[in-house]
């Protein structure tokens, strides 16, 4: 057992060590993207959590005169839509929906992707072949179309949308994890574990899995970004959860008013952009920070 001790919690330890070793210049650059990303994310989370506090009523209720431009009425800083609903309230309440779907879909993709990747990388052979062919299938087909079909068949709920997005996104994670698992599998401590008579399950869970997760950290954040974008596209196409509000459906609803009131489209779209950008920047920042091959600029 003592042989495996240094590898326990390999992932966080590894990150910390790399952070310590990072030259000051690169750390600064990495953390700038990371900082902006984290600030954006914090802002979105704050809005999502406080939406009920500042706008306790139903955001779908009429609140004032329809089509008030942002800034025209102090009660409605972001204006009202074509039905007189408060844009700010609707957007604040939508933040939670987007984050929920994005994180749930990413979590599913991570779960399936990590499991498939570790199994394929550790066992190799036929298991690897089958799992990689399946992941190729998912990477070949137009995934947004597949997601759309699943949502149409299952019916648009937050759960089915998250499922349909997550189930198409796992192959990229599986490939990353597989590559790491193939590498880790050949290391001495895995041989040592085999010699000690450990079973496959224990070796995979205790040794291969924790040491194959480093590249997933960066990918996870990009994954959430992609999932939020897919969710926005679905809502825009009219496949969002009809019981909730979302930025994508607000853009879709504002579309007929484009000529006279483009702010109804611009504002929720901008919210999607800032949220996705937040996750992308976190991913980029982490990548600069963690990837030892990133050139010092």
């Amino acid at each position, binding site marked *: 057992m003592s042989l495996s001790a240094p590898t326990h919690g390999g992932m966080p330890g590894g990150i910390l060590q790399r952070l310590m070793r990072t030259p000051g210049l690169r750390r600064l650059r990495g953390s700038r993207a990371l900082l902006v990303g984290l600030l954006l994310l914090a802002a979105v989370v704050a809005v999502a959590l406080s939406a009920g506090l500042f706008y306790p009523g139903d955001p779908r209720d009429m609140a004032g005169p329809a089509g008030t431009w942002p800034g025209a009425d102090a009660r409605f800083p972001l204006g009202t839509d074509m039905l007189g609903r408060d844009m700010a309230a609707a957007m604040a309440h939508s933040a939670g929906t987007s984050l929920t779907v994005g994180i749930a879909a990413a979590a599913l993709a991570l779960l399936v992707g990590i499991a498939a990747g570790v199994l394929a990388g550790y066992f190799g052979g036929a298991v690897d072949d089958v799992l990689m062919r399946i992941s190729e299938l998912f990477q070949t087909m*137009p995934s947004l179309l597949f997601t759309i079909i699943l949502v149409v068949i299952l019916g648009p709920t937050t759960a089915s949308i998250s499922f349909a997005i997550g189930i198409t996104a796992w192959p990229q994670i599986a490939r990353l994890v597989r590559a790491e698992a193939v590498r880790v599998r050949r290391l001495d401590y895995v041989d040592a574990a085999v010699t000690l008579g450990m079973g496959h399950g224990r070796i995979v869970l205790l040794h291969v899995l924790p040491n194959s997760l480093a590249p997933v950290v960066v990918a996870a954040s990009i994954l959430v970004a992609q999932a939020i974008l897919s969710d926005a596209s679905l809502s825009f196409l009219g496949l969002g959860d009809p019981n909730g509000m979302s930025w994508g459906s607000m853009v879709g609803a504002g579309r007929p008013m484009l000529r006279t009131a483009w702010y109804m489209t611009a504002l929720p779209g901008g919210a*999607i952009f800032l949220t996705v950008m937040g996750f*992308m920047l976190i991913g980029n920042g982490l990548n600069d920070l963690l990837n030892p091959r990133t050139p010092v600029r």
Partner: protein
Amino acid sequence: MPTSLRYVFRRLVQALPMAFAIVLLNFLLLKLTPGDLADVIAGESGSATPEFMENLRRLYGLDIPVHLQFVNYIQGILHFDLGYSFRQGMPVGELILERLPATILLSLTAILVALVIGVLLGVVAARSRGSLLDEAISVVSTMGFATPLFWVGLMLIVLFSIELRWLPSAGMVTVGADYRGLWDEWLDIGRHLVLPAVTLSLFFLSIYVRITRSAMLEVYGLDFVRTARAKGLTEARVVIRHVLRNALLPIVTVTGLQLGAIFGGTVVVETVFGWPGLGRLAQEAVFSRDVNLLLGIFLCSSFIVIVVNLAVDLLYAALDPRVEVRQ
């Protein structure tokens, strides 16, 4: 050339299981859909007796075991019989063929736009590596990736169609236009093509910038580039003939790999711009919950991705002598 012919054959054989898997997936989705064809027809006609439903099921082969239905399904696909869209009142195969050219035109134009601008920006970024310009290009390409395409499209409409009135906002041709010749018509289509193509190109643009930049940085330090410089070639010639040429291979590969994603992009972009292609057809099918039509589009676009990737692989083997054509 028997060796390369054998390579072509081997790649063809490799593509077949993928095609079969797509067909199987499509069939499973069809079976997963609540309500079968008989329900759809009965629903369209208003009312139905159990006997009528039973007759329908017999007529469409829905009363036989599932694995035999699958055999029938494959036979249908081999004859390009993808079923009937009761909402559109047309066979699914015909609908798709009718809409396909518009989507191909839009996608190819978008890829071309992205290629030209993306490679250019990538070269500039790599040449000025570490500078403010490099950083700016990197930020802009991240932004291109983070922006929802439908929103970009709508904002472009606000700017160029509504405010500036430079370009049309919807459709592929001007309604009721009276063309004086083919050139006139093409010009009109071209004007309608600008905004959707630019919108769709954004997705590829950021990918191309990244690939070009990293591929260029990778080969910049290699011996053959130093040799080229030592021979006294101009910098432009070194970049174009020696560095960029090596960056083109990953670009071709990624274009093939991302083709599935561009079909997703066309659904959104064609919806925004009313472009009469496959994506718009998919959106109409979503709107009327026409699963059969959606599955037909899914099947066809998946096949197109498989075929194009096959072509890319073969092209790759022809372009890059390092790709081994094994016996």
